[in-house]
């Protein structure tokens, strides 16, 4: 009897592995996703120069106002940023969201021209020219978006452009719930 079980072992191992594979495929797991360790933790330091002329630099205080805030890293050279830009414009104008934009590795005149052309949804805009702030935020590229609650805790993190679905299912409930 014992011996027979031994002969079943390879089959059992295969079943286990296949289960994981099927789970992965059915759940639509994205193998390229790297997750974020920031979620649930206080937002990292945000100290960058202002993107627009004659504005004070951005500080951590912006993220601890008691109101939920969206932090969006973008760049004028980034094509996916174009795709998500209208969603931020709508979030700012229709839903009154407070959005902090940080231009990552982007020369300020170019970023300003980009915003001028497409519209500027950012209540506060900063410039992270050398990517140091991005590194502190665990950024892997642009665009990336963080939802920070009124106490300055990161609640959600999107790598890559946000979508209509993200807005409806995650961002809007977050803005309402955290208020």
């Amino acid at each position: 009897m014992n011996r027979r079980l031994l002969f079943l072992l390879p089959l059992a191992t295969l079943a286990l592995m296949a289960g994981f594979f099927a789970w992965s495929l059915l759940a639509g797991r994205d193998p390229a996703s790297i997750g974020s360790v920031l979620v649930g933790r206080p937002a990292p330091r945000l100290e960058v120069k202002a993107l627009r002329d004659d504005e004070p630099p951005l500080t951590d205080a912006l993220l601890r106002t008691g109101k939920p805030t969206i932090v969006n890293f973008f760049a004028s050279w980034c094509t996916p940023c174009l795709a998500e830009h209208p969603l931020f414009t709508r979030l700012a104008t229709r839903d009154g969201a407070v959005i902090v934009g940080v231009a990552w590795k982007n020369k300020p005149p170019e970023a300003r021209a980009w915003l001028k052309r497409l519209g500027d949804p950012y209540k506060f805009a900063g410039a992270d020219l050398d990517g140091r702030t991005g590194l502190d935020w665990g950024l892997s590229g642009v665009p990336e978006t963080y939802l920070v609650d009124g106490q300055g805790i990161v609640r959600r993190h999107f790598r890559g452009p946000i979508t209509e679905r993200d807005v409806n299912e995650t961002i809007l409930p977050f803005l309402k719930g955290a208020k």
Partner: protein
Amino acid sequence: MRTVAVLLATLLLAWPALAVEPSEMLQDPSLESRARDIGRSLRCVVCQNQSIDDSNAEVARDMRRAVRERLTAGDDDQKVFAYMVARYGDYVLLKPPFKAGTWALWLGGPLVLIVAGGLLLMAARRRKPIPPPVPLSDEEQRRLDALLKP
């Protein structure tokens, strides 16, 4: 969504990776050599199985610079790794840490060896030893010699 992410990756990723640039290198050769060793153990987070040392993605460049800044500031290697893990999680370590979630990973191979080896040894001990061959008798030896004689 996936396609956009892939597009993003290709935009950020200029193949082939051209790795560390001369301008990034530290003056102190021993610090630089430590930086290279650390760089080889940190994963470029937008690449596929590349270390930051082997990649020229923007973020890999930033990470290399941060490693060198931490080393220059006097951090030991462990602190530099911790600095990166705080930002990118265990994902950034090409050698996963040994902790609850990875015990099975680290111990799986040796376990296979020990269990399978143990089973084999047990089976071998249970098996009856084969009696050593009885040496030929003088008579047999003589017949054999006769047969083998050309």
